[in-house]
């Protein structure tokens, strides 16, 4: 399978931040964000988000970074 290497859409970061801000339990937002991304995002979207996290870390909430870390472990 070939994958297009176009730049990720800027909305992914916004979406991820919104998810982290909106999950029910603020104390466990990283875990819940990770679960949500796993359930509803394509692997490519998560990969693109990870790319964005690397190139522009300031744009993502801390719990989104933690969620990405949790996803890597899976």
């Amino acid at each position, binding site marked *: *399978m*070939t*994958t*297009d290497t*176009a*730049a*990720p*859409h800027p*909305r*992914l970061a916004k*979406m991820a931040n*919104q*998810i982290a*801000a*909106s999950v*029910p*339990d*603020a104390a466990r937002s990283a875990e819940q964000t990770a679960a*949500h991304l796993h*359930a*509803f*995002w*394509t*692997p*490519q*979207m998560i990969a693109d988000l990870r790319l964005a996290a690397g190139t522009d870390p300031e744009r993502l909430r801390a719990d989104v970074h933690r969620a990405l870390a949790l996803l890597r472990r899976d």
Partner: protein
Amino acid sequence: MTALDDRDLGTPASGARRTVALSVDGIAVEVPAGTSVMRAAALAGLPVPKLCATDSLEAFGSCRLCLVEVDGRKGTPASCTTPCEDGMAVRTQTPRLERLRRLVMELYISDHPLDCLTCPANGDCELQDMAGVVGLREVRYALGANHLDAPTDGSNPYFSFDASKCIACSRCVRACGEVQGTFALTISGRGFDSKVSAGADVPFLESECVSCGACVQACPTSTLQEKSVIELGIPTRQVRTTCAYCGVGCSFVAELRGSELVRMVPDKAGGANAGHSCVKGRFAWGYASHPDRVLAPLVRESIDEEWQEATWDEAIGFAARRLRQIQAEHGVDAIGGITSSRCTNEEVFVVQKMIRAAFGTNNVDTCARVCHSPTGYGLKRAFGTSAGTQDFASVDDADLVMVIGANPTDAHPVFASRLKRRLRQGAQLVVIDPRRIDLVRMPHVQAEHHLQLRPGTNVAVMNAISHVVVAENLVDRAFVADRCDPMSFGAWEEFIRLPENSPEALEAETGVPATQIRSAARAYAAAPNAAIYYGLGVTEHSQGSTMVMAIANLAMVTGNIGRAGVGVNPLRGQNNVQGACDMGSFPHELSGYRHVSDDSVRSLFEDAWGAPMRAEPGLRIPNMLDSATTGAFRALFIQGEDIAQSDPNTQHVEAALRAMDLVIVQDLFLNQTARFAHVFLPGTSFLEKDGTFTNAERRINRVRPVMPSRTGKTEWEVACALATAMGYPMAYASGAEIMDEIARLTPTFAGVSFDLLDRVGSVQWPCNAEAPVGTPIMHGEAFTRGLGNFVTTPYVPTDERTTRRYPLLLTTGRVLTQYNVGAQTRRTANTTWHAEDVLDMHEADALVRGIADGSWVEISSRVGATMLRARISDDVPAGVVYTTFHYPVSGANVVTTDNSDWATNCPEYKVTAVEVAPRSVAGAPT
């Protein structure tokens, strides 16, 4: 009047459990207490002649044809208004009665035109029938005072009112009140001068009449008659089918003369509508034969070229080649498709199968994404099922109804009529809506509580209501203890008790006085049966999913789940939103809401379909469009949806479509999206389909072909052909065979088959071994997920805030006579009522901007601007403006943004910060 052969038992059924036994003409009959003698006689096979009685209306007792004798009683009581009693001996046929009936009929005919042979209702007229039944042979009265010259009112585009044929039975007046709840008709004058009047004696079109057709249906003569019948003649055959407009899913009998559709008559046996209809389903079906219909496939290399007509093989071959080519160049996941909530379950199922099995990707989504995806998400988490809990009939048992972000009288009119009837019977009404929707105050209906919140603050309001329930100890402890997950309840209770969730703390944010919230909360909690109905005003927000769960929390904490009269009820926008979701149209779920990561589910499909299934979710519509703008996503198959008009931020949608290598549109008309398409595959109207729709109450209704496909192919045949051309052979012999496959692969549909539906009419899923004829009310003994799950619902304000530049909030909705993007209704006479979208704004907002009622304005948001006419209205509060999105020329979605629900990406249509400015007519769109 209808040519249906359904027995009309004359008066409505009694709901009593106790029965009484009587004899009718010597035949023993046992009926529920409260049953009329007329109904008992009809049930015994001894129909009593009648004219003013019909079993959709309360007994009236005016025509005096149905007189009977009762042993031991004086006189000749009307059987329609006489309740059965134990031991009663009724005679329906005696010489005296026959004589009286003839004498009554003689009076009727003494004031009726004797033009039966040329009357449009000849052969379909109860007066004519009854004259025969009672044996009238002669009218001995000389021509005296009469109404033979009374005028005909033809103002309504769909039906005419010929007063000369009126027998003053009041069936139309009563239907307008009792069935529809509009009370537009009345009898004016008295005695011999009594006549049916619309409004204050104005033409029907100028009255409050909503053209639901109930009066036409009720009329026993040709007084109120469909113009199509006058024009085409009495129908000769019938096909039972289902309306393709809103999520109510009304059953209709399509009546044809030869192959020509003459009229659509609401089906009394219809599970959802019980014989009622609205102006759309009843009358606005002419689009199916509109000249704009495209009947042959169209193809073009690029969107700058003209369309070329093609054969089916050419078009499908072209599409298949390009799709495979794009996958070869850009990856399997560079293509995807969208299923349509307008299409049948079978058509949707086949398209998603084509995408998953033939395309080899989970990049499938459905237009429910932009309406009710938060319902699926939220209710699944709370209850375990992505669907509403009740049937429509449940509202008959509700003592309090809470309507949140829905406008049923416009968007779900047939359900609204049922709701209004319950409200007239005394149920309380709570409306939570920024707008003063019609339900807030209309004839004989008034909301006890209208929480007129600021758009975007739903979750805050709902948390405040639940806060009151918990803080004031109104919790149904027994229900929570027995039925709900204690851990989740504990966490939620702790959260909801927080002072920040009190009505007082949130008053400034929501704009709703705390006292109003408290009294509404108390009323909801105190009602023996409280039911919640909600619409897109709940889901189409950045916290749409959170709000759905907040609603579920409130229902659970007060024990309002699992029986008639309660529940959480999403009012679905389109005819098959529920079905499209059920059929596995979401990128993360296979049919029956089973996640693609579930190995056992996937292997079931892999075995059945002989193709590998991907374990990871695919792209949602907004993700597809975003990816298209970056070049990662390059081809889209769109079944029956006009995303260029219906989806938010039109510029963004158009840019994405323009960026793609291949757009395939399957539709009735060359819609806005087709401007960006390379292949156009003509679709079929509901009159040509053979399948099922699933309505908002999970009711699976049959859609039967009223006429052959005008394109020469069914839509599922087209999908099969495309899949086959792509190298994955797919073929079905019939819609029934597709449903059999759905049933095999979907536990909640296991018992469903066309055969069953043809036998029982309709079923509500789950329909399987445990519930062989379906499940009207869910979660009766236990929740689908076991214990009800309370989800904590912190209020997170939307990013879409008013600013000095955009100081107003725009919210959108629909009107009764138009539907969605208007593709159908704009191609009917419904444009008589709503010929353009207008912007409702409060007088205060208009004044400071120098905007006059009816003048052109420009509305702009941070993403775009469009123009429409302003209407000064106090239905909206100051600071809020409102419009509909039925017309592409006004393009309300040009201004809506790409904000969306955090969990589902359902767009935030209901909150857009805007500015409105006056514009000269010269700048107006034409």
